[in-house]
């Protein structure tokens, strides 16, 4: 029974108020994309043991979607942030790296 902070309305929301939305920061492939690209976009999801970026909706609350950075093994939550970004913000990134040195992010090259 997780508690996640909704960055829109400011509520520390109980999981019963939330609806999960799977992996965050997917890039949409529409008409014109290859079969492989479309398949990857539609079906292939990361399932890491450790740090994960997820979509959640404050469904029984303000109704807004947001993102959460969470460890799938310990349920540590590194932060929640806006849904209107295409990658994790810098401060979330730094926070994770601070707590999990050596953590590899696909958004850091």
């Amino acid at each position, binding site marked *: 029974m997780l508690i996640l902070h909704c960055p829109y309305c400011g509520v520390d929301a109980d999981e019963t108020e939330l609806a999960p939305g799977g992996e965050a920061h997917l890039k949409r492939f529409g008409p014109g994309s290859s079969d492989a690209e479309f398949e990857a976009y*539609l079906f292939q999801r990361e399932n890491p043991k450790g740090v994960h970026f997820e979509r959640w909706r404050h469904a029984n609350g303000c109704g807004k979607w947001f993102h959460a950075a969470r460890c799938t093994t*310990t*349920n540590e939550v590194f932060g929640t942030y806006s849904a209107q970004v295409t990658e994790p913000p810098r401060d979330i990134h730094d926070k994770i790296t601070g707590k999990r040195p050596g953590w590899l992010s696909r958004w850091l090259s």
Partner: protein
Amino acid sequence: MSARLPKGGRFLNRSQPIEFSFNGKQLQGFEGDTLASALMANGQQLVGRSFKYHRPRGVVASGAEEPNALVNLGTGRRLEPNQRATTTELFEGLEATSQNHWPSLEFDVGAINARLSRFLPAGFYYKMFMWPRAFWKHVYEPFIRQSAGLGKAPNARDADTYEHFNITVDVLVIGGGIAGLEAARVAGSSGAQVLLIEQTAQWGGRANVDATLIDGADEEHWIEATVDALEDMDNVRLRTRVMGAGVYDHGYVLAYERLCDHDPQDGLPRHRLWKIRARQIVTATGAIERPLSFAGNDLPGVLLASAQRDYLINYGVSAGDRTVIVTNNDDAYRTALMLHNLGLEVKAVIDARAEANGPLPVAAREAGIRVETGKAIAKVKGVARVEGVAICAQVGEGAVLDEIACDVVAMSGGWSPVVHLWSHCGGKLVWDDAQAHFRPDPGKAPIGADGHAFVHTTGAASGLLKSDEILQNAHDAGADAAKAAGHKPKRGKAPTAASPDEAPIEPVWMMPQGAGHELRSKMWLDFQNDVKVSDVQLAAQEGFESVEHTKRYTTLGMATDQGKLSNINGLAILSKSLGADIPAVGTTTFRPPYTPISMGAIAGEARGKLFQPLRRTPMHDWHEANGAHWEPVGHWRRPYAFPRGSETVEQAVQREVKNTREAVGLLDASTLGKILVKGPDAGAFLDLLYTNMVSTLPLGRCRYGLMCSENGFLIDDGVIVRLSEDSWLCHTTTGGADRIHGHMEEWLQTEWWDMQVHTANLTEQYAQIAVVGPDARNVLEALGGDIDLDAETLPFMHWTEGRIGDFDARVFRISFSGELSYEVAVPASQGLAFWNALLKAGEVFGVMPYGTEALHIMRAEKGFIMIGDETDGTVIPQDLGLHWAISKKKADFLSKRAQERDHMTDPDRWQLVGLETVDGSVLPDGAYALAEGRNENGQRNTQGRVTSTYHSPTLGRGIAMGLVLHGPERMGEVLKFTNIGGAPIEARIVSPVFYDPEGKKQNV
């Protein structure tokens, strides 16, 4: 024989006798008794039968860990099976019956299973019931059903009420022994909000039994003073009879309160489920004594050494007259000394260790008690109860050295910390070699959102077994928890306690260590499920190396007690059989709840009318008053039909269709989803959501639209209305309103967030009534108003707004029936008045309300698809002949890319057609069209299936819609359809539009 002692029993109120019955026999106990102590006080040691072999069973423990003493409690509407006698507080008039025997507890036919035990080894069910296949249905399944389950399931509605309770606290302390009390006291001193719960009715745990001096005085004095101090703190809540059931993510805890199990009554909830959010949790849940594995350890009269002390001190009950104690540790000598001090006979202490020279064994010898070291019990003598023990050397194979007559065997195999709550949410365990048990590994605690531990254990639950260590540890745990919850505890000094030194335990997993198969097959590990040492060894031999597999194969620990006594002993045997260390084998997963909780508590108030919220349209009460036959649709109830007089529902449906087609009908369509989409980019956004073009819809017009998922499949349909330059009203299916609104918001917020669009779900803001039939216009015109309803001013698929009669109305000329039809939306508050006005104005035209079934039939007669009938999550618009509703102009929309995949463009996809049975009958719903041959699984090949099927009153025959291979190209062909229990039914492929194919009727 077990009996009540003339005095003693600190829980008892001997001036308050209580009458109760067991198997119909009237017995007497005292206030403060448990059912178990009262039965023992009455000499009733046989309390039940085991599950598999129907062996006689007596009380073995004194608390939640009891595997044997399970009874049917109560009768009728208050009957409940599998209630533990050891945790059932006695009350006046309590009625209990024993379980799992026939015809009686004393003489049980099922006990024959025990003689057959050779043929019922571990994994018996898996091995025996495989073949031959035909036996399953007629022999095995009836046999298993007959023997499944211990108690009787109640067959009457529960007379009691239950409730849920939500609370948030800083520190939750679970367990009200001295550790829990001290932890709560220190945490409470910080001003933190503290909740302390205890599963029994008393504070102090077992400290009172094994008398300890705390701060130089009797422990009782300290317990009382500490409870008083806690009760004086405004920030501390204390509750007894509340069991910590489960610990979940981020400090969520379920606790189970038994409010009046000890005093059944109306007017109070029986159980209360506490839903607790705690910043910090301290589990002070104590430890459970382990049995020892020796032949015959399951006979009534064999019990835990600590339980024997509990019954003596708490209830003034002796388990028998002559006790033999068998142990591998010093603690059991407390039982010997207590019995001796109470003047009861101790025949011997059988100690498996080579020597026993700690203060407690020394005291026992000084008291004149016979102590035999290096010895074991070769076997317990007796058939239905203990009559004596045969003694052997622990190191041998069981050669009998001596026999001792006795009627009680008190066993102690050491103590296992209660780690369940710690483990529920990921806390890890470490094997403690010195104490031969698993205890929590404080370095691997359950982690909260902040990355820090949120569960801490203390006391015996941490593996501490000496009072002074327990109190110091609890003091620190309480302070640490308060601090971690953001408070400043007042650190004082921990109370001090005096406990005698104890010599180390010696792990003894089998007695004697060289026992042969004969003895091993009489050593019980799981008393309730009849799992023996030999069963676990057999499982290991057969290759079940994982402890989780062994558990399921042997059913070890799968009984109602969830292996509280058997788990560690079982996995020790398994690890030995595998030649592995105990920690390498590991434990099975600890799952909530700690002890079983009632289904009533889980349901809480959610039963009957409160089970689920009911959505009502503004006309709901009218429907109810006018005999609506209801159909649940989502959380709504919609009238299925309105039967009149002696009409059947079926007849009513046929009448409603006929009347609507020939005169005029009214449909409450208020449940249809109504989502307003508004903003500068609303048109562009809707073009992405619908498969057809929406942005070009002219003002004043309506258009039928389809929505597909990004994966290509149809998810909803409905009429889109262009309200203004920048706003559209999107109708959805009744069940789809919330889902589609969520779907829109998801894409808006997470993909196209730069679009300036606002959505609002207005479904409940309007009452919507479909006025349908040749006289529809006449009825509306009879009401008057300022709207011109004629065909030229308001043609088909147009809308307008104004006043109809006295009502503010939006009028949509849309039709789901093929008839002249106006759907009129009025503010919800005016819905019922408008409905009544229509009925009145329509009276001269023969207006009748119709329900959802008439709606369905009329749409099927017209070949209109229904989401959920023609679609099932695997159907695309192209399957349904809806190509015309898929834009070829738009560069992008949800599902466009998906529908380009080769599987979606496969010409072999089944396609929508109409079906007419050759004989005019109604095809079975979901029937399959048969094809030649069989597939690789030997199943008949198919070439289509029925998606909707009705009797059409308009055509006077059965009609159906279905998806058929190359269907549209096979018009006129006759197919055979499956018909369960009968011969296949022939049906001809026809156009799905059965009625008015030119659409003249709706366009007048």
